[in-house]
């Protein structure tokens, strides 16, 4: 009797307490909210730490390249490189015929003549120095030594080979405009446009006597600065959902299964190093649900009971045409998510690109091929274009059917920022291919008017083909 009673008491407690419900005090939820916020802050800090590391690397690359760029210009402009020996022809004076110009770095002004004589002799036994431009009289730049040496060869035929197709008047400053007018037929090469010796082949030396007026900039036709690209980018996506209320936990637990972007990009060079680009892209994200099958109770929407499928990227109304169950309180249905579950966005990007380095990949002067390394950053505007979700609906009477949800509400356009680095390889005179690892993250949530905020962050690699006009 006692054992029987002992077993019964357990069932009594189970049957009574199992059906009991208790609402925890608001303070508990408030504390939970605070803890959730702190957790989010910690997560933000972790993300920001990695972003800082990534941004530092990009900044170092870009900053280093800028420093390198300007220091390179300074060397070219003020102190010619020790290692470069350039042969040029110019008409210096009426009394001096077409000559070969050699410039070398001058360590000591007093050694100019000896050093250059030696260099010239080493270069060609038959050359002789015919004229030397002496130390600069520019008081603002006392270090600027004229390092132009005119060396006349004894070979008439060889000298004649250096005759230029244009005639520059005698001046210490060769204006770029003059050069532009005379070499207008030279094709523009975006890979080497920022390398003076390569871009303007006949201008390899400037006097350190800085002109009072700044020479006009070299103008390149708009058409030659334009390029278009087509690309594809596989992405590793991560979905971050911030839920502000307990009700937000009814909005699914989707994770990104696959993400990719393809698109077209048009770029225009603002300067030899900086270009701006825009275009159109289509991003597709395929989701997978951590909870594939769930029970759904009808909810009152605009005075009507409807079955709503709630996801982290919007809410869809489950069509009831094929349904045998009448939407009513206490009439739940079960919904199982099928594999097809994707959302697409049309993106408009706006990016700035800085060409940091150009590397010559081949030796010699023929079939030269260049590779450029660059940094890129900008913003994107994303507009939802399509959402597709296949589900199977199970009803309590055993009836089930498949349907596709396409009309999702609460999905909104959003902004994102992105930055990356890239490498561009010249394939031909007008074509190139490029590869561009990048990071992209939402600035604002892509759902609105819901108790949650959804953010995407992607790391991807764009692989593209480019055509230069």
């Amino acid at each position: 009797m006692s054992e029987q009673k002992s077993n019964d008491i357990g069932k009594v407690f189970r049957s009574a307490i199992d059906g009991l419900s208790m609402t925890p005090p608001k303070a508990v939820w408030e504390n939970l909210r605070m803890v959730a916020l702190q957790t989010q802050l910690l997560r933000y800090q972790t993300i920001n730490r990695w972003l800082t590391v990534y941004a530092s690397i990009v900044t170092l690359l870009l900053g280093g390249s800028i420093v390198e760029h300007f220091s390179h210009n300074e060397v070219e402009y003020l102190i010619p490189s020790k290692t470069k020996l350039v042969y040029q022809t110019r008409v210096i004076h009426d009394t001096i015929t077409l000559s070969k110009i050699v410039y070398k770095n001058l360590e000591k002004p007093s050694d100019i003549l000896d050093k250059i004589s030696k260099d010239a002799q080493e270069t060609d036994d038959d050359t002789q120095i015919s004229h030397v431009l002496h130390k600069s009289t520019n008081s603002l730049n006392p270090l600027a030594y004229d390092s132009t040496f005119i060396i006349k060869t004894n070979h008439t035929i060889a000298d004649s080979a250096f005759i230029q197709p244009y005639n520059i008047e005698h001046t210490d400053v060769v204006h770029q405009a003059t050069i532009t007018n005379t070499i207008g037929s030279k094709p523009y090469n975006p890979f080497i446009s920022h390398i003076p010796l390569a871009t303007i082949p006949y201008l390899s030396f400037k006097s350190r006597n800085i002109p009072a007026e700044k020479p006009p900039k070299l103008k390149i036709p708009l058409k030659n600065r334009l390029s278009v690209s087509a690309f594809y980018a596989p992405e590793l996506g991560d979905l971050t959902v911030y839920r502000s209320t307990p009700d937000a936990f009814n909005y699914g637990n989707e994770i990104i299964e696959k993400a990719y972007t393809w698109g077209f990009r048009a770029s225009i060079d603002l300067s030899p190093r900086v270009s701006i680009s825009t275009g159109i892209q289509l991003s597709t994200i395929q989701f997978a649900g951590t909870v594939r099958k769930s029970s759904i109770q009808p909810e009152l929407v605009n005075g009507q009971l409807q079955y709503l499928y709630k996801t982290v990227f919007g809410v869809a109304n489950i069509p009831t045409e094929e349904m045998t169950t009448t939407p009513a309180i206490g009439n739940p249905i079960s919904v199982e998510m099928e594999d097809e579950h994707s959302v697409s966005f049309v993106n408009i990007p706006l990016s700035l690109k800085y060409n940091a380095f150009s590397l010559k990949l081949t030796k010699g002067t023929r079939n030269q091929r260049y590779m450029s390394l660059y940094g890129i950053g900008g913003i994107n505007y994303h507009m939802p274009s399509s959402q597709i979700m296949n589900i199977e609906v199970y009803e309590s009477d055993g009836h089930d059917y498949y349907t596709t949800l396409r009309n999702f509400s609460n999905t909104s356009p959003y902004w994102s920022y992105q930055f990356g680095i890239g490498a561009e390889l010249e394939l031909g005179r007008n074509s190139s291919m490029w590869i561009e690892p990048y990071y992209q993250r939402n600035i604002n949530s892509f759902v609105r008017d819901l108790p949650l905020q959804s953010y995407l962050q992607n790391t991807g690699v764009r692989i593209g083909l480019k055509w230069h006009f």
Partner: protein
Amino acid sequence: MMVVCTRYSSDYESAQDLLQEGFIRVFQHLHQFKNEGSLEGWIRRIIVNLALETYRKNVNLRNQAELPSEYESEHPLSAEDILSQLNANELLSLVQQLPPTYRLVFNLYEFEGAKHHEIAQQLGISEGTSKSNLHDAKKLLQKWVSKLMYDNNNHI
């Protein structure tokens, strides 16, 4: 979940703490939830595991209750009588009054459907001790139910 937390706690404040700690753990491990069973069951398992962890940390609370000599009820009680005279909250408060080990064993066996060898493994006790604790817990509850019903009837 608040009821689950209350069953595993000795008072309402401890139940609140357990609920809060449990949901913090849910937030932290939400990404680990897989498509195996319901979300509710997963959260419930987290809270039960947390209650077990709390029990293991507070080893000094494992004092066994001294069963009163007259704990055997003299009045036979049927399930209908108990459920008609006592409400669920009163029964829940009786579970809370059980000594910690008895409460855990009773909850795990009656509400979570755990077997005695599983309970023994989780609590670090022998299987025989688990059976004995469950038996004693039920005896205590039976006595307290009888007393409560008797008090209620006399009060009326």
